């Protein structure tokens, strides 16, 4: 299903959560809403779900205005950060909930629930209660529960935010596979840029209740539309007043016209990569990321004077991709 969010605004008391946000989610895509906490990403997702009502603006699903529709009538599946598992029901009853509400025949419910429990790998846990499951298992149960009603859109609110790093990585890959197989239009809220880059086709970067940029992971990283986006989606250094990626910084022992003199403060070996911390003339500290080969060639050591420049810096901040929102 295609979703159009048009000029949606929302305030809570004296806090503006969203100011006139417009976003298109194409049919079958996986879009990530990426931003720091308080950027409005969860509010936007909850407005799409109907759990929150916008102060102004409209939400369209396949062209139909659903702004006033209840969540029950939107054909959505919603997954919460803290699972929202029905504590008094077994795993099987949790997954079957939506189908039972819809009064589907018992045999159909059983068959569908078995299929979903297999899909999320919880078949042998079907008789347990949520508190007997690990966080990762609970979230897979919540996903199965949301998928049971065959939603036209899957909405995920920081679904892996409360999980360990290893479980998170596993579930991310699983979610992407699921999306590739089932093709359900999916909107994912996250504050983790790596998660957004790994899972999503399209990323909408949000800040202060607005969408700063919408684009593919590569566009967002290579052509950030603003300093905020640049800083949020990857490491940055400030060089001569401009933001640059540390791996775009060139370090040389030979002085050149556009280079800045800097002193090596520290050389940190991180396996293949080497991080060089530099003190610039104004006392500012910048970081450069080099390969081990480059560092060996330059024979960098603490106290050395080097010349740094960033040929890409000007290009990166002066030719942003046009924000589509």
């Amino acid at each position, binding site marked *: 299903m295609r979703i159009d969010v048009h000029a949606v605004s929302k305030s809570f008391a004296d806090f503006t959560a969203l100011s006139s946000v417009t976003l298109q989610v194409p049919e079958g895509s996986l879009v990530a809403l990426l931003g720091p906490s308080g950027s409005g990403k969860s509010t936007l997702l909850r407005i799409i779900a109907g759990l929150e009502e916008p102060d102004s603006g409209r939400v369209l699903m396949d062209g139909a205005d659903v702004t006033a529709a209840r969540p029950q009538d939107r054909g959505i*599946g919603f997954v919460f950060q803290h699972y*929202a598992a*029905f504590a*008094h029901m077994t795993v099987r009853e949790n997954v079957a*909930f939506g189908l039972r509400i819809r009064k589907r025949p018992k045999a159909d419910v059983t068959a569908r629930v078995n299929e979903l429990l297999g899909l999320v790998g919880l078949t042998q846990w079907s008789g347990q209660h949520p508190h007997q499951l690990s966080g990762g298992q609970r979230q897979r149960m*919540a996903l199965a529960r949301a998928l049971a009603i065959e939603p036209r859109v899957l909405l995920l609110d920081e679904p892996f935010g409360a999980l360990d790093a290893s479980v998170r990585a596993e579930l991310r890959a699983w979610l992407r596979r699921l999306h590739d197989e089932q093709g359900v239009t999916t909107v994912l809220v996250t504050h983790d840029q790596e998660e957004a880059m790994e899972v999503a086709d399209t990323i909408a970067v949000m800040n202060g209740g607005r969408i700063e940029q919408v684009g593919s992971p590569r566009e967002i990283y290579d052509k950030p539309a603003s300093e905020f986006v640049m800083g949020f989606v990857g490491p940055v250094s400030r060089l001569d007043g401009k933001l640059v990626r540390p791996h775009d910084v060139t370090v040389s022992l030979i002085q050149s016209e556009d280079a800045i003199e800097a002193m090596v403060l520290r050389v940190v070996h991180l396996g293949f990569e080497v991080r060089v911390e530099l003190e610039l003339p104004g006392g500012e500290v910048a970081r450069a990321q080099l390969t081990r080969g480059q560092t060996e060639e330059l024979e960098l050591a603490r106290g050395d004077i080097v010349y740094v420049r960033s040929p890409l810096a000007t290009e990166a901040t002066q030719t942003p991709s046009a924000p589509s929102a």
Partner: protein
Amino acid sequence: MRVSRRARLSLRGIALLYLLILLLLPVGAVFIRTFEHGFSTAWSWITTPAAVSAFWLSVVIALIAVPLNTIFGVGTALLLARSKVRGRKLLNSLIDLPFVVSPVIVGLALVLVYGQGGWFGSWLLKHGIMIIYAPAGMVIATVFVSLPFVVREVAPVLLEAGDEQEQAAATLGASSWQTFWRVTLPSIRWGVAYGVVLTTARALGEIGAVAVVSSNVAGSTLTLPLLVQQRASQIGAGQITGAYAAATELAVMSLIVLLAMTVLGPRRAR
């Protein structure tokens, strides 16, 4: 904080001693005095027409007051914990009124409203409706004094459970009514059960407010606590054993309610 073994044991000892002196000893004394002339004597005291009538009046009043206050209590707790309606703070403090006001004042207030010469007194008299000095007034008084228990037990449970499960149910297609029965109520059942136990105990045991609006006629407007009081106050009439017997009966009734909830509760949870 680490507490030494000795301190822990003495703390436990003090707590037990405190309970023993203040609770178990007096209650135990009543039990002992009840049966000092044998079981059959005690039994005959609680099977007199006045005692049987008092038993049933107490049961009927509880059967009316407890369901009313349970429904009202769960509804009000939902309003306090889930809605953003204005005046919630006022409602929240009003709920505690029966806890703060002395039961005698509750009884007097009811007389002022429904009694002869009260606000609705003449209207009620004209239509032949008896509230004060009749069972109806005793029910109202009981509802009043036992009103806060369910609200006070359920509201914190609702707040702690949060509304995410309810939102999840909505996204899965459940109506508010379905969500209440399938998601909300099961998650607050312990709070409700405990609130019902406390409400029942209070409804059975209330004397202050009920005494004011009762005509204290044995066989028609005496509840069990009023019967206990009446028998106990007739010194020298040899009715003191009867007072103890009725008191024990009352205590056993409350214990049965408590036990029923503890036994039935976990079964429903499964």
